[in-house]
């Protein structure tokens, strides 16, 4: 019960009762169906992130740059997972983002590297898990991701991806400075909004795994 109070905070009585019911329902499920619920919630959170990408709400952009929701998601996922799980999440979300913009240059590399680096960081135990460090990781990873995109644009300009129109090298790196900084600041500020509920959910799922089902 104590755990559940952490999840929902000091909300109203009715909210607490709803939370109780959900928790009771999750406990009553078999481990397999609980897995399905877990994956459904995870997938839903990815879809929400994808749908938030084209949206520009007032106050949500800096220099015309929105927060990078997919990057935040990949960091939140990879912080407590293995190297390969992080890489796989990066590839999957990268492919999805390619579908929503353009496939060339691809987002797969940048998000995959973000997933792998984040998973690696946690093993060294230099960074404790809390909001500030997650925000810092997101900040650094946004710079890494934008740099990888800029490198791809530069390579494209040298004709490595075949024909196609690419901006000039100078323009790419000028734009990179602007976009990397704006994206890093905004994404790290918005990171807790996504990280907090997702992390709580996965923690709850993990703790339910430990309890043998009746």
């Amino acid at each position: 019960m104590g755990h559940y109070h952490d999840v929902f905070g000091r909300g109203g009585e009715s909210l607490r009762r709803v939370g109780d019911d959900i928790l009771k329902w999750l406990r009553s499920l078999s481990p397999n169906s609980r897995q399905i619920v877990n994956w459904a919630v995870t997938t839903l959170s990815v879809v929400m992130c994808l749908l938030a990408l084209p949206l520009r709400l007032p106050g949500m952009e800096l220099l015309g740059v929105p927060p990078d929701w997919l990057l935040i998601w990949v960091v939140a996922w990879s912080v407590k997972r293995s190297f390969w799980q992080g890489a796989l999440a990066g590839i999957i979300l990268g492919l999805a983002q390619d579908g929503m913009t353009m496939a060339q240059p691809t987002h797969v590399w940048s998000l995959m590297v973000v997933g792998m680096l984040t998973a690696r960081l946690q093993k060294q135990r230099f960074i404790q898990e809390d909001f500030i460090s997650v925000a810092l990781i997101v900040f650094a990873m946004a710079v890494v991701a934008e740099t990888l995109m800029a490198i791809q644009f530069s390579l494209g300009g040298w004709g490595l991806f075949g024909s196609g129109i690419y901006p000039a090298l100078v323009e790419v790196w000028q734009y990179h400075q602007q976009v990397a900084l704006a994206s890093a600041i905004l994404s790290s500020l918005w990171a807790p909004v996504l990280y907090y509920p997702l992390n709580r959910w996965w923690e709850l799922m993990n703790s339910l795994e430990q309890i043998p089902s009746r």
Partner: protein
Amino acid sequence: MGLGVLALVGAWTIRQTQGATLAELYRWLTLPLQPQAEQQQAILENAQLSELQQRLIELDAQNQELQRLLNYTQAQTGEGIVAPVIGRSADRWWEQIVVGRGREHGIRIGSVVSGTGGIVGRVIQVTPNTSRVLLVSDPTSQVGATVSRSRVMGFMRGRSGSQAVMEFFEKDPNVQPGDVVATSPYSQLFPPGLPIGRVVSIDFEKSPAPEAVIELAAPVDYLEWVTITTSLEGGANP
């Protein structure tokens, strides 16, 4: 592991279908946020005025040119579909918009999109109810352009924002700040004579060819409604 493969296949499907399902879902979810029809009327009337002014200069110059040349091909006019802008690019590196009209309304890939005052881009992907537009302000988007006053030719590249750069083919082009720029007859993607913007400054020293900075006529950063012309095909090749 099985779930991982499943997720990978799902993501691959999104990529191959160009996120069509997501685009449709996004449109449906943002329906209450989309601008209403009354606002659109006022914006359009305002826009038509400035667009007509620029067109007048363009047509005037074109007319003189044609009287001289006498090999004018009939300008095509197409049906315009008014579409609300429901989203911007899903990434920071591309200048794109998502509009809430699609294949069911007759929009095809390559349809020309114009906004309040001039062209804004062309359609690069359509789903039944949405289309994605690559803006002319995107650095990867090139448009053949001509200066309406002196008929100097060149091409224009976007510079992510409301400005673009026009490169000329000649060493000493007859251009001055304030000149109106329109799509050229050599453009492969756009029909000739559509207004693009105005020259702000010119750098004659630029190598290999002089460059001019152009202020786009359409406010690409603040688009709410656009007009999509479907029957206009790319300009006739000479």
